[in-house]
């Protein structure tokens, strides 16, 4: 019973937050509503006994990602107002409303129709035997202690998903490199326009050996 109450409250929090993200006029408010949604989802994770995921949800998403969003919003300038009255492409908004509504309807229908899972088996059932899969609390480790979800994650992460795990590191590093490249400005005193190679789509045909010295062009910035 408690679970049902907690679920309803958390789900309502998440849904209201999600609606708030979409309808808020001020993007900063949208970001704050997003925190509410993420918190609601974190509680839902707790209900699924995924305590570690709940903590990750709060620490990474609510704590770090939304902060990143806020920096971007402040960077783009919340003080700049934009006129939403004019549609850039005629008929775009009604179309978007229709498509969005249709997708929502399809999603809800699928959830209602498919309570039994795909072909008679669902996630809570073992696909091979058709028996209910053991729940998290049932499983006992080799030493007789119950296995926590953090251990379960560790086990698959460092065995079955070892490759994906290492690739994730590469992905994060690329994110940093890309952000540095895209946000870096040339050294002080030089305006970007001065360095513009050409106003055309393609670079100028300068003989390779006649290139300007790049360090003096201030690219390194160091």
């Amino acid at each position, binding site marked *: 019973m408690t679970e049902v109450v907690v679920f309803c409250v958390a789900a309502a929090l998440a849904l209201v937050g999600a609606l708030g993200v979409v309808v808020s006029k001020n993007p900063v408010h949208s970001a704050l509503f997003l925190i509410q949604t993420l918190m609601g989802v974190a509680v839902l994770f707790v209900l699924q*006994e*995924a305590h570690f995921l709940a903590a990750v949800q709060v620490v990474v998403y609510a704590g770090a990602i939304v902060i990143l969003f806020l920096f971007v919003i402040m960077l783009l300038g919340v003080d700049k107002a934009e006129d939403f009255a004019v549609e850039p492409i005629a008929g775009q908004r009604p179309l978007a409303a229709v498509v969005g509504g249709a997708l929502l309807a*399809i999603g809800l*229908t*699928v959830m209602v*129709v*498919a309570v039994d*899972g*795909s*072909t008679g*088996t669902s*996630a*809570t059932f*073992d*696909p091979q035997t058709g028996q209910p*899969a053991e729940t*998290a609390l049932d*499983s006992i*480790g080799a030493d007789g202690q119950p*296995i926590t*979800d953090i251990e*379960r*994650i*560790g*086990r*698959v992460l*460092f*065995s*079955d*998903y*070892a*490759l*994906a795990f*290492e*690739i994730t590191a*590469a*992905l994060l590093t*690329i*994110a940093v*490199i890309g952000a540095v*490249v*895209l946000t870096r400005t040339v050294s002080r005193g030089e305006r*970007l*326009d001065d*360095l*513009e*190679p*050409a106003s*055309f*789509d*393609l*670079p100028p*045909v300068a003989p*390779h050996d006649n*290139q*300007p010295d*790049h*360090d003096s062009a201030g*690219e390194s910035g*160091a």
Partner: protein
Amino acid sequence: MLALLAQQVPDFVRPDIDWHAAAPELTLLTFGALVTMMDIVWLEKGRKLTSIVASIGLLATMVPIITLAVDGADRSMFGGAFVVDDYALIMKAVFILTGYVVILLSTNYIAEGDYWENEYYGLLLSSILGMILMASARDLITIFVALELLSIPAYMLATWRKRDLKSNEAGMKYYLMGVFASAIMLYGMSLLYGGSGSTLLTDINESISGPGDPSAVVVLGIIFVIVGFAFKVSAVPFHTWAPDTYEGAPTPITAFLSVASKAAGFVALMNMLFVGFFGRDDVYEPVIWILAALSMTVGNLIALRQTNMVRLLAYSGVAQAGYMLAPLAVAGDVPDSALAATVGYLVIYAAMNLGAFAVVIAVARKTRTAEIDDYRGLFHWAPGLTVAMTVFLFALAGIPPLGGWWAKFRIMGAVIEANTAAGVVMGIFVAVNSVIALYYYARIGVKMWAEPAPDDDTAPVRVPVSLTSALVLTAAATIAFGVLPGLVGEVTKVSLLAGVGG
């Protein structure tokens, strides 16, 4: 996640690593790290070396791919999440060689345009790493991580000319549409996982391909996953990003996006269709059929009206994606021919499309633009480029004896072989569209050969060595695949179905 976790063995089991099978990925990862380290140590002083190190990295990655191909055995790791078979090896080789040609196209362009060089090659290598990983990925999580690894560097590379607003627009559109597609696909994947309880494609297949109607969850999951990849391969109606991104991005990156990125989307799609969804052709065949028919028709019709060469190639690429999707629309009826036809088309398409972009880059070194009108009288000042462009355009149109002809022939063969009404109608679509496409390809040919040069400016253009070698490589491949069709036919006679019951 818990249901999956509950089925795991009780204690941590150290996975068996087949170092030979993982060698291509590890080599490329090492070289990617090496390029980054060079940048960290030498900063801009090392910029002349990075393109060389990156090319060496790609060629070094070919070594384990070749030894694996010689060895010939199918290898599998991580419970089937990472598979090395003939199909994976062919696609890895395509990605590596495409990447090599793109580096050849890039060296002068990037250096002379005064763009960041070190990061450019580092990001290019990581994108290719994502692609070769995708060729082996047989698991939802690995597929998703590989997709992100190949996409995220590509978003940044598209906006590399960051002093140009058009390039910013290109990167922005590509990024927004790309993450939107990722989100849809991820939702589809979560539905599939929810419906089957596993992230392994073979397990998913076992769970969803049973007799009887599929459940609504599975249907929606399959459709969302296909839609996600349809963005990646720029199939209509999910193609809208392609022309603007292609036009704004640096041209070598446009070539990379239109060949390697598109091929990676197809590889992922084929992994899903032939391993994950096999037996559920009642769901995916109609979806793919509509995408294929729309892509080739809309792509070709819009291409007729283009005045910019890159935009024309973008729409022609949309149409080509339609041709490549066509055999997948009958994948359930004739799986082996359909797979071989699409893989074969991808191989040949890589050669001819890269070649066409190489010519665009070479011509733009003089004309500064990619307007089709500037190709008038090309023969008078660049006869070599004119011949090469004619070869590539006629190959794209599918005229014998060039590579594109054989590729299209096999597409027709596969859809007719299916012997279903849908297959035959698809065959008619392919035939009609080939005729439409011939018109705009031939129109460029006429402009190049028969019309006078604008302002009678016949000063020759200096084509650097790397660009020339790229042209020679792609032209040789395009012609060889056409006159020796057995070559690509033998190589691409692959099957993905070894691990699947069907």
